[in-house]
């Protein structure tokens, strides 16, 4: 179906359907509130204390507000979030990132913005983040390896940040790149992946209100091993889509390459949406082990974020576009 749009509205300025629906739900009042509570979601502005953990270290981030879409599930312990994760830049074992990231220097930090936008350039960390209110968002994270966590991220929604760079109508995708510093990231000294790590999103995925540019966890600055100082969080996709230690944001017309797809194209697709029905070629994705639990639980479609994201994929064969 072809929908004619007035030519003077840029596609980047059109309100995303998900935002629109989210507002409608908010306006929906008591009924919406009940439904949201039942589905484990907290509405924007709902009062709750920020998540903390006595073991958490790192500088406390000031002025964090309560963000939308947070789950009320039990959060994963700080020590597990920071000592069990994949960040191949520091080694392939899940304990490697916490062991080998001590020499990494996340400050100062610059992000290069380029491609199909009106305001390309080199931006300091504060230029990127400073103009937005930091939000706490408690999201589920589902790794393609069948384990999952619940993480209290601190960050800003990606969409408003991207809009400040004024993407042109040719900006159909956003590509991201991780920093390449083999002296500080010992994993990059081995050619296990084709460094630097790259990832990408379709522009509507990047603009989706769920998509977060995270700078912290547990109310504090991101530890090096979790992708300091700036990383993506795309909670309805497998963890590797949430690229860490981002130094480049590029708006593109063509679908950008992504590292895992280049490495094993039959196993990792561009979309990589969490989907219990579409198996990894070597293992089932129907279940996952939530860290801290013994038995596995069922994996949810889009990692439980269907309400926010399913519309973006309506009519797509998710087996083909895995």
């Amino acid at each position, binding site marked *: 179906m072809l929908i004619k749009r007035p030519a003077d509205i840029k596609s980047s300025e059109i309100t995303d359907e998900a935002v629109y629906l989210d507002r409608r739900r908010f306006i929906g009042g008591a009924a919406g509130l009940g439904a949201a509570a039942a589905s484990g979601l907290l509405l924007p502005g709902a009062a709750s204390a920020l998540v903390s953990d006595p073991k958490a270290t790192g500088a406390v981030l000031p002025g964090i507000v309560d963000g939308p879409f947070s789950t009320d599930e039990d959060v994963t312990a700080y020590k597990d979030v920071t000592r069990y994760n994949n960040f191949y830049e520091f080694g392939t074992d899940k304990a490697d990132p916490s062991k080998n990231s001590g020499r990494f220097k996340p400050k100062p930090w610059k992000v290069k913005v380029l491609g199909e936008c009106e305001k390309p350039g080199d931006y300091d960390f504060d230029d990127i983040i400073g103009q937005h209110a930091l939000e706490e968002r408690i999201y589920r994270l589902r790794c393609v390896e069948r384990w999952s966590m619940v993480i209290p991220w601190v960050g800003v929604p990606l969409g408003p940040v991207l809009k400040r760079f004024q993407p042109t109508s040719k900006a159909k995708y956003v590509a991201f790149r991780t920093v390449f510093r083999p002296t500080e990231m010992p994993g990059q000294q081995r050619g296990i992946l084709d460094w630097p790590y790259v990832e990408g999103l379709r522009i509507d995925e990047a603009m989706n209100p769920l998509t977060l540019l995270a700078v912290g966890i547990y109310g504090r600055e991101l530890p090096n091993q979790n992708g300091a100082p700036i990383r993506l969080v795309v909670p309805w996709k497998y963890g590797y889509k949430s690229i860490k230690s981002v130094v480049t944001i590029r708006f593109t017309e063509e679908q950008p390459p992504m590292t895992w797809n280049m490495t094993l194209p039959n196993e990792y697709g561009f979309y990589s949406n969490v989907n219990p029905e579409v198996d990894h070629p070597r293992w*089932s994705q129907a279940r996952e*082990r939530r860290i801290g639990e*013994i038995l596995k639980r069922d994996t949810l479609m889009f990692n439980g974020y269907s309400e926010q994201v399913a519309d973006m994929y309506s009519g797509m064969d998710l087996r083909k576009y895995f």
Partner: protein
Amino acid sequence: MNRQHLVSRVLKPAIFIAALVPLALLLWGATHDGLGANPIETITHETGDWGLRFLLITLCVTPLRRITGWNELIRLRRMLGLFAFFYVCLHFSTYIVLDAFFDLDYILEDITDRTYITLGFTSFLLLIPLAITSTDAMVRRLGGRRWRLLHRLAYAAATGGVLHFLWLVKVDIREPLIYLGILLLLFLARVPAVADRLARIRGAGRDEKTSAPRQIAT
């Protein structure tokens, strides 16, 4: 102390104790929050690793015997093989109970659809008759020749185990490749020409007959 005593009275009990250390460490870890963020995964990986390691160590006995001329080493083989089976059983039980939680449909789908599980499960099945026929009485009943033939399945089980590991790793295949290398060396050591050369290192070669355990209590 002669060599026979050294192997039976010192080496064998020492290896028995050592072979229980991985299990002890797992039990200690499980009760002291020492297995990391994903303890089930740690248990699965550790028991699988040790099952494969003991299987490969077991297969090293014969070449080692040829090289050293220490025929008494044969007395360690059954124990090592049973430890391999023991850890593989723990590995399999961990999967059945903690991973699949006795969900038969889930297990069957895994076994039929996932190549690495098919391979691992086949290896486990192959080890069962070997464990059952590991007793002196069974060696007698089968006769040395048939027993030896049957127990060559250990090579198939080890091959399946290595491929099982290789197939499940995402990209960093260094560790399974080490096991594959060891396995290939073991196959090489069974090539008659190579086996003869190994035996000549110490001039203490023995033919195949001695590789079935003698019918004596060890």
